[in-house]
C-alpha cells in the first residue's frame, strides 16, 4: 500500500492563504512552516476541520536565529506520510489552542512549567510536571536555568495545593488512590468521584517519576543521549533507542546497513511481543483467571530470556545505537529464534483460546472501559487503544520507517473500543509480530551491522510505533552536542483516554481498564 505524501497535500491545502514555498523540509519527512501569530491563529481551525491532529507541542530556545522561546506545533494527518511543524515565536501573548485541539492541554501546561510561558484563555492552568514541592517561578527547561541538584524544603503536601475537580451532590464521594499503589507498579494518583459503585469522574495526576530527562540531555554528547533514550521507559527501550538513533542518522543524512535495519526490526518486534504478553497476562490476572495469566507470563519469561540471548539484556538495552547496532547478532542465533517462535505461536494460541472460552473472562472484558472513537484524534490516542476503537492507524504503516516498508502486513482493527477489543487486537498483533520476525529472519542479509557517523548540525523529527502506540522524538544537534531532545511517548497522550474510558464503570473494573490501556508512567513523566 502506497501512502500519499503529506507535502503534496499541504502544498494544495495551504494556498492561497500561505505560500507553500514557505514550507521547509527537515531531515526526515518533517515540513517546517514559520508563521506569525495571526497567520497561525487563522490556520489552526482549518487544520482541525480538515482532520489534522496535534501530536506534539513543545518549546525550544535559541532555535534558528531567534534567541527567545519558539513553540513547535506538530501536526499529522492520518494516512499521509510526513508531519507539519508550525513554528511561532513566543514573543507576543500566546493563545491556548486547547479548545481546538484538546491534546494541547497537557502540552501547554508542560510548556508553562518548563519555560514560564503563559497561554491566554487556557482553561487549565494547574501545574503539570513540577509538583508543588518546586518553588514558584522555577522553570527548568529555560536556558537561563543551569541544571543542578536542588535542595527543596521537605514536607510540602502536594495534595492540599493541587485542586482536583470537585464533584458534589447527594451520595457522591471521593476515592483517592496513590501515588503509592498496592501492587508492584509505578506511582500516580487517581481521584475518583463515585456514586454508589459507578465512577462519575476520574482525574489522573501523574509526573511523580519526573526525573528531568529532557534537561539532562541538553548540552550532552550523542552517547549520553542514547542512555537517556534507553532510560525513558524500561520496556520501551528498543523503540526509544531506535527513534533516537534514527534521529541522529537522519541528521547525518546516512542510513544504517540493511542487516542492521533487519536486526532492529526483529528487536522492535520482540519488544512488542514481550510487552503484549505481559498485558494479556495482566488482564487475565485482573479478572481472576490465574491459570491463563500464569501460562502467558511463563511464555513471556521465555521471550525475555531470548532477549538476553540476543542482546545481553532482558530489556533489549545496550544494543540499538546511532549507525546501527552496538554488536552483531549471529545469523545462527536468529535461525534458532525463528524455530522457537514458530513453535511459540501454537502454544500462545492454545492459551488465549482457552481464556476466551471462559464466561467469567468474557463477562468482565466485554463492554468494559469503552474508548469512544470520537476521542481518538482530538486527544491523539494511538496504538492498540486506537486500533481497538476502529481506527486503522499504525505508525509502522502510516509513517513507514526502517525495514517495515519491505514487509506487508495489516493492522488488526476492531470497532468496539472495550477491554475485549483491546485484548483481541493485542493477540492478533502478537501473531503479526511473529510473522514479521519470521519473514525478516528468512531474508537476513550478510554484511555490516553498523556504520560510523560523523555528527553534523541539524534537527530531525522521528515517529515510531512502540508497543504502546506512536512515540515522537525531536532531536536538535549542534557541534555533536544535544541542544534539545524532546520526547513525547504514546502514553503521554493515551493517559487522557482513561479519564473517559472508566466513566459509568465500577471502581473494581479500574485496574482492568488501566491494564488494558497499558500506560507507562515513566514514559510520560520523563
Amino acid at each position: 500500500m502506497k501512502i500519499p505524501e503529506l507535502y503534496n497535500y499541504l502544498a494544495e491545502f495551504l494556498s492561497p492563504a500561505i505560500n507553500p514555498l514557505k514550507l521547509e523540509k527537515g531531515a526526515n519527512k518533517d515540513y517546517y512552516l514559520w508563521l506569525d501569530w495571526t497567520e497561525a491563529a487563522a490556520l489552526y481551525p482549518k487544520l482541525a476541520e480538515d482532520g489534522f491532529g496535534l501530536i506534539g507541542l513543545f518549546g525550544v530556545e535559541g532555535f534558528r536565529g531567534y534567541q527567545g522561546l519558539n513553540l513547535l506545533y506538530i501536526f499529522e494527518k492520518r494516512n499521509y506520510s510526513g508531519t507539519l511543524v508550525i513554528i511561532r515565536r513566543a514573543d507576543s501573548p500566546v493563545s491556548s489552542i486547547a479548545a481546538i485541539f484538546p491534546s494541547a492541554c497537557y502540552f501547554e501546561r508542560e510548556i508553562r512549567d518548563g519555560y514560564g510561558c503563559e497561554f491566554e484563555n487556557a482553561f487549565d492552568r494547574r501545574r503539570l510536571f513540577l509538583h508543588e514541592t518546586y518553588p514558584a517561578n522555577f522553570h527548568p527547561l529555560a536556558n537561563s536555568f543551569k541544571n543542578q541538584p536542588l535542595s527543596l524544603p521537605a514536607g510540602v503536601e502536594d495534595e492540599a495545593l493541587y485542586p482536583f475537580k470537585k464533584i458534589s451532590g447527594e451520595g457522591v464521594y471521593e476515592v483517592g488512590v496513590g501515588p503509592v499503589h498496592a501492587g508492584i507498579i509505578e506511582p500516580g494518583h487517581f481521584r475518583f468521584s463515585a456514586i454508589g459503585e459507578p465512577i462519575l469522574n476520574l482525574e489522573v495526576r501523574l509526573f511523580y517519576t519526573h526525573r528531568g530527562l529532557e534537561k539532562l540531555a541538553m548540552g550532552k554528547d550523542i552517547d549520553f543521549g542514547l542512555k537517556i533514550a534507553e532510560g525513558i521507559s524500561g520496556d520501551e527501550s528498543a523503540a526509544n533507542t531506535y527513534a533516537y538513533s534514527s534521529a541522529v542518522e537522519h541528521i547525518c543524512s546516512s542510513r544504517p546497513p540493511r542487516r542492521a535495519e533487519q536486526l532492529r526490526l526483529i528487536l522492535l518486534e520482540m519488544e512488542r511481543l514481550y510487552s503484549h504478553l505481559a498485558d494479556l497476562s495482566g488482564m487475565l490476572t485482573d479478572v481472576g483467571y490465574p491459570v491463563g495469566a500464569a501460562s502467558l507470563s511463563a511464555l513471556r519469561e521465555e521471550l525475555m530470556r531470548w532477549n538476553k540471548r540476543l542482546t545481553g539484556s532482558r530489556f533489549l538495552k545496550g544494543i540499538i545505537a546511532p549507525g546501527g547496532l552496538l554488536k552483531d547478532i549471529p545469523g545462527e542465533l536468529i535461525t534458532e529464534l525463528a524455530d522457537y517462535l514458530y513453535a511459540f505461536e501454537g502454544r500462545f494460541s492454545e492459551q488465549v483460546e482457552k481464556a476466551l472460552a471462559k464466561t467469567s473472562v468474557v463477562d468482565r472484558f466485554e463492554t468494559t472501559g469503552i474508548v469512544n472513537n470520537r476521542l481518538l484524534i482530538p486527544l491523539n490516542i494511538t496504538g492498540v487503544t486506537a486500533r481497538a476503537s476502529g481506527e486503522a492507524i499504525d505508525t509502522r504503516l502510516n509513517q513507514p520507517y526502517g525495514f517495515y516498508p519491505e514487509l506487508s502486513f495489516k493492522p488488526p482493527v476492531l470497532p468496539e473500543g472495550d477491554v475485549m477489543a483491546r485484548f483481541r487486537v493485542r493477540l492478533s498483533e502478537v501473531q503479526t509480530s511473529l510473522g514479521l520476525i519470521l519473514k525478516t529472519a528468512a531474508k537476513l542479509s550478510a554484511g555490516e551491522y553498523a556504520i560510523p557517523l560523523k555528527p553534523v548540525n541539524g534537527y530531525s523529527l522521528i515517529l515510531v510505533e512502540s508497543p504502546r502506540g506512536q512515540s515522537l522524538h525531536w532531536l536538535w544537534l549542534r557541534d555533536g552536542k544535544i541542544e534539545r531532545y524532546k520526547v513525547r511517548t504514546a502514553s503521554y497522550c493515551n493517559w487522557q483516554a482513561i479519564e473517559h474510558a472508566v466513566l459509568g464503570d465500577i471502581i473494581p473494573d479500574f485496574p482492568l481498564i488501566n491494564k488494558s490501556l497499558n500506560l507507562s508512567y515513566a514514559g510520560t513523566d520523563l
Partner: protein
Amino acid sequence: MPEQTCEVFAVKNVLNNMFGPKICKQMPFGDAEFDKLGVALKSEINTIFGRSLAIRALDSGSDNSAEIELNNLSNPYYDVERFGISFVASPRHADILIVTGAVTQNMAIAVRKTFDAMPSPKLVIALGDDACSGGIASGGYGVLGGVDKILPVNLKIPGNPPEPAQIINSLLGLMQSLRKK
C-alpha cells in the same frame, strides 16, 4: 444430548472431581540452579523471620524495568512464594522495603511516608543502578539522588535492572549477614 445422558455426564464429572486422581502436568520449567538459591534463602528466612518474609516494593522514580523484574519473581519460572517471600500491599505489613529508581523530588514525600508507615525493625534495599546511586538522572534538578539520600539503606543491588536470580542471590546474602550479626 438427551436430558438423561446430560445428567449422567454431570454426575460423573462431579464424582471424578471429588474422587478421581489429581493430576498435575509436569511443569516444563524449573531451574535447578535457581531452586537451590531459593531453598537456601528459605532456610535463612525460617531462621530469621520465622518462616516468611514480607516485602513492600516502592518505585521512587524508576524506568519501570526493575518493577517488571520484581513482578517476574512471581511468574511460574521463579515463583518465589515457594521460598516464603510475599510482596505485600501495605507498608504496614512489610519487613523489607525495596526501593527502585533515583528518588525524584515529586516522590520524596511519598517515599518518606511509606518508610515511616512500616513497623520496626525494618530493612531497606535499593534495587537497580538508579536507586543505588542516582544513575543517569543524578546531578539534575529532578532527583535527590540514590535512595540513601533520604532513607537508611541496608543493601544495594546494582544492575540495569538486576535479573531475578541476582535479586534472590542478594537477598540470600543479606539474610546470611543478618544471621551473623
